[in-house]
């Protein structure tokens, strides 16, 4: 009997103790060692530099994003048990999840807060990689990362429709109409996305399919490639400084347990937030009458604000420019200087700081003039054609280009040029998000301390 259990793993305490000792894998035959060798060392090198353990190197954003994705997958599968993707049943099934299903409101809240966390961490991860120039020589992985970003935005967008409440429906209806501004392919994409010309049962089913099957599968595949490429490209970008930063340490347990710790604490924090704060469920849909105001979710408020100046600009021109800029970044900036340091060189840092301040000032000026005049006056002054060309959105593009040129010429560095341009766009998009958040009924701007009038 005893022999049977021993064979089964009765030596577990002994094995565990051996396995948990610090130091390099002992090459032993214990289950822990074998697991470590086959799985852990596939994802991690045997040894890593001390620099890789520092928080300030990467801020752990990739791990946070991955954790959020895992949480979303698990909670998503659980929600699929009760959610029904039919226009008559969807809202009722969401109400059931929220009110009647045991732990339903917790799982739903966890799903939503993890989604928001993922959007933020993915954006910050992109910014971290960009500002370190860590894409240098890693064009493929950068593109894979952009693909992942697109998948994340797609998941956020498709998932938002599923509750089928007033905000969901109108967000998708307006976004689908935004596709009319995209030349050549816009109409075709819209019709494929909606399964017709209006947002109805076909659209809900297609969004559901995208949200639970196609996009998660795409994410999984791209994540696998992304992680593989990191190993293949030699780990973290940039050489460590001489001295203690370049000290070599065993990845197990120092790196691996750090990652595990981060994953665990992300889960703890999200679970605590989900336990305390419930995810909201909006008013049931009215397919003919939008609310006043009808606001996009916070991560698309910048787009709503831009589109309120000019539909082709906000729906096509600016996203296309952003995409082109991001895709082209590793091909156009081929500097090796300063890779792996935050903002590269001190000159670059200065350029970025100046650009950020200039962007804030410019944003303030644009909006003060625009807001004082009121949205109607702006359009009245410029007629029906000029607002497409002269508006805060195009102002942002012009400023970004100016900042990039100035920084590039002043520092002589393409990295500085791109980062300056990027930071201008970022600051202004953030500004547009805040302004969009302050918009009230009839899309009139109200300061946060002014109340909104109650209108129909």
């Amino acid at each position, binding site marked *: 009997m005893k022999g049977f259990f021993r064979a089964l793993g009765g030596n577990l305490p002994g094995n565990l103790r051996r396995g948990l000792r610090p130091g390099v894998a002992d090459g032993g035959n214990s289950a822990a060692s074998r697991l470590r060798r086959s799985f852990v060392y596939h994802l991690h090198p045997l040894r890593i530099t001390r620099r890789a353990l520092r928080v300030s190197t990467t801020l752990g954003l990739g791990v946070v994003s991955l954790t959020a994705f895992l949480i979303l997958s698990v909670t998503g599968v659980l929600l699929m048990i009760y959610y029904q993707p039919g226009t008559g049943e969807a809202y009722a099934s969401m109400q059931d999840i929220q009110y009647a299903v045991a732990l339903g409101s917790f799982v739903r809240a966890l799903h939503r807060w993890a989604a928001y966390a993922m959007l933020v961490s993915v954006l910050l991860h992109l910014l971290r990689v960009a500002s370190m120039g860590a894409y240098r020589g890693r064009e493929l992985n950068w593109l894979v990362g952009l693909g992942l970003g697109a998948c994340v935005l797609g998941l956020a967008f498709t998932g938002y429709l599923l509750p089928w409440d007033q905000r969901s429906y*109108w967000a998708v*209806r*307006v976004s689908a*109409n*935004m596709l009319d501004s995209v030349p050549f392919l816009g109409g075709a994409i819209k*019709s*494929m996305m*909606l*399964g*017709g*010309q*209006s947002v*109805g*049962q*076909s659209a809900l089913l*297609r969004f559901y399919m995208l949200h639970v099957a196609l996009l998660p599968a795409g994410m999984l595949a791209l994540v696998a490639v992304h992680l593989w490429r990191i190993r293949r490209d030699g780990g973290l970008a940039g050489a460590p400084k001489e001295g203690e930063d370049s000290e070599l340490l065993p990845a197990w347990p120092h790196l691996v347990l750090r990652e595990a710790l981060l994953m665990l604490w992300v889960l703890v924090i999200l679970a605590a937030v989900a336990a305390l704060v419930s995810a909201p469920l909006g008013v049931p849909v009215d397919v*003919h*009458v*939008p*609310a*006043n*105001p*009808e606001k996009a979710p916070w991560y698309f408020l910048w787009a*709503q604000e831009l*589109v*309120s*100046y*000019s*539909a082709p600009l906000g729906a096509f021109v600016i996203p296309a420019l952003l995409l082109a800029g991001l895709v082209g970044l590793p091909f156009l900036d081929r500097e090796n200087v300063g890779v792996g340091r935050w903002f590269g060189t001190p000159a670059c840092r200065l350029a970025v700081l100046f650009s950020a301040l200039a962007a804030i000032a410019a944003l303030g000026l644009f909006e003060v003039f625009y807001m004082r005049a009121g*949205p*109607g006056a702006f*359009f*009245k002054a410029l007629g*029906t*054609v000029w*607002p*497409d060309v002269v508006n805060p959105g195009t102002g942002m593009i012009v400023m970004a280009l100016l900042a990039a040129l100035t920084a590039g010429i002043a520092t002589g560095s393409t990295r500085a040029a791109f980062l300056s341009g990027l930071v201008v766009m970022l600051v202004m998009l953030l500004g547009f998000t805040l302004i969009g958040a302050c918009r009230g*009924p*009839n*899309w*009139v701007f109200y300061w946060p301390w002014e109340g909104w009038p109650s209108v*129909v």
Partner: protein
Amino acid sequence: MGKKDKAKEKGAVSSRRDFLALAGNVGVCACGLAAAGLGARLAVPELCDGPPHKFPVGPAADFISGTLTWIRDREIFVVHDGDGFGAFSSRCTHLGCTVRRSTEGFYCPCHGASYDSQGRVTTGPARKDLPWYLTWVGSDGRVWVDTDRVADCGSKSANPEGSAARDDEES
């Protein structure tokens, strides 16, 4: 077999091998593309899930002269005045939100576009006027609207018969 022949044979075998490899790759790629194409074709919708584009909105006698009526299910306004019946869309030409009535005409709550009482755009991110549609009173006494046939702004058809269009039953 002579050396030259052996070499030639080897060369022939290599090129055949290469050719087969290339053909195989091309074939697999072609299959992949074909599959993707078929999948994409599947996704293109065949069934139109919207309401019909030509429809009656109600008995003509129900539309009091001098009124503007919003037909909720079709998202159009029907107007009846001395010249007859007219109809125009209540969807903002910017991004499709339903406009509401204002003292000067209409405004869109989504981004602040505004129109005058004839649906002409006055301010806002909208650029085009609210489209008017062909409207007539059918032989059944009902007011019919055809959203596929755009009419001039403000056009109304005189009571009762206004056009050569046939009144099809709504499907």
